[in-house]
């Protein structure tokens, strides 16, 4: 197609300039040839222009398609990045504040109806039990760490429960808790 375009363009210029310069205007036959060649040159130039316009429009359409594909890809990437960021944020929120999450779920469950109340209470109780177990295990681990540093019972109770040695009910409760944790660990 492009070869045809270039041939037509070159022939139009040649048909325009060559007969006008080479042929004699005083001879009738030459004048006739000049007229015919000028008409042919116009036809060649217009045909070449039409072909070039079609090619130009096709090129513009291809460029538009490429831009649309690029925009689609960019949009897809940005959407997936946004979704993954949202997922990470939700996961982080769920990890950081599980109790609040459960309370929200509980509130929603209450809104849905009274039938779901026992289920929600059970979920909350399980969650609290898990939390207390986690707290016990953390305390036990901390006690072992302090014992490894050579700390005594009174100092450990002061460190973990924040009560000083004496006959206060708080200290007695903390001491009982300490003993329970040690027994659980031993048993």
């Amino acid at each position, binding site marked *: 197609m492009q070869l045809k375009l270039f041939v037509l363009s070159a022939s*139009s210029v040649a048909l*325009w300039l060559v007969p*006008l*310069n080479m042929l004699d205007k005083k001879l009738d036959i030459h*004048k006739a040839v*000049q007229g015919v060649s*000028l*008409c042919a040159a116009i036809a060649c130039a217009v045909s070449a222009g039409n072909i070039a316009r079609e090619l*130009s429009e096709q*090129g513009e359409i291809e460029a538009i398609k490429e831009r649309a594909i690029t925009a689609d890809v960019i949009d897809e990437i940005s959407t997936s990045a946004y979704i993954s960021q949202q997922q990470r944020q939700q996961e982080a929120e769920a990890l950081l504040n599980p109790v609040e999450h459960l309370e929200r779920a509980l509130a929603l469950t209450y809104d849905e109806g009274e039938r779901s109340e026992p289920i929600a209470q059970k979920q909350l109780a399980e969650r609290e039990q898990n939390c207390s177990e986690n707290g016990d295990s953390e305390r036990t681990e901390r006690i072992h760490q302090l014992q490894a540093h050579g700390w005594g019972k009174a100092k450990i109770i002061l460190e973990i429960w924040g009560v000083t040695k004496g006959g206060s009910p708080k200290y007695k409760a903390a001491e009982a808790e300490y003993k329970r944790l040690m027994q659980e660990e031993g048993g």
Partner: protein
Amino acid sequence: MRAMYLANYFVAGCIAFSLLGWVASLHPMAFQAVLCLLAAIACAWGLSWLLDFSLSKLLKISVADLQALLISGLAMLLIGLGVFLCS
């Protein structure tokens, strides 16, 4: 490719004005007719240049495009007739 098709149409316009000169050279009456045609073209060109804003609204093209068309038309006339007269 856009420049290519504009250039081809420009060359076609130049050849058309050369053909007009060739027609004018055929007979004195044809010469008079071509002169009248060129005078009419000159009047239309001048009016278009003066009424460019109104004409651009009428043709629904920008003023810059209309002025480019007018200037390219003048260039086609000068080149086409110049090539014919100098040959």
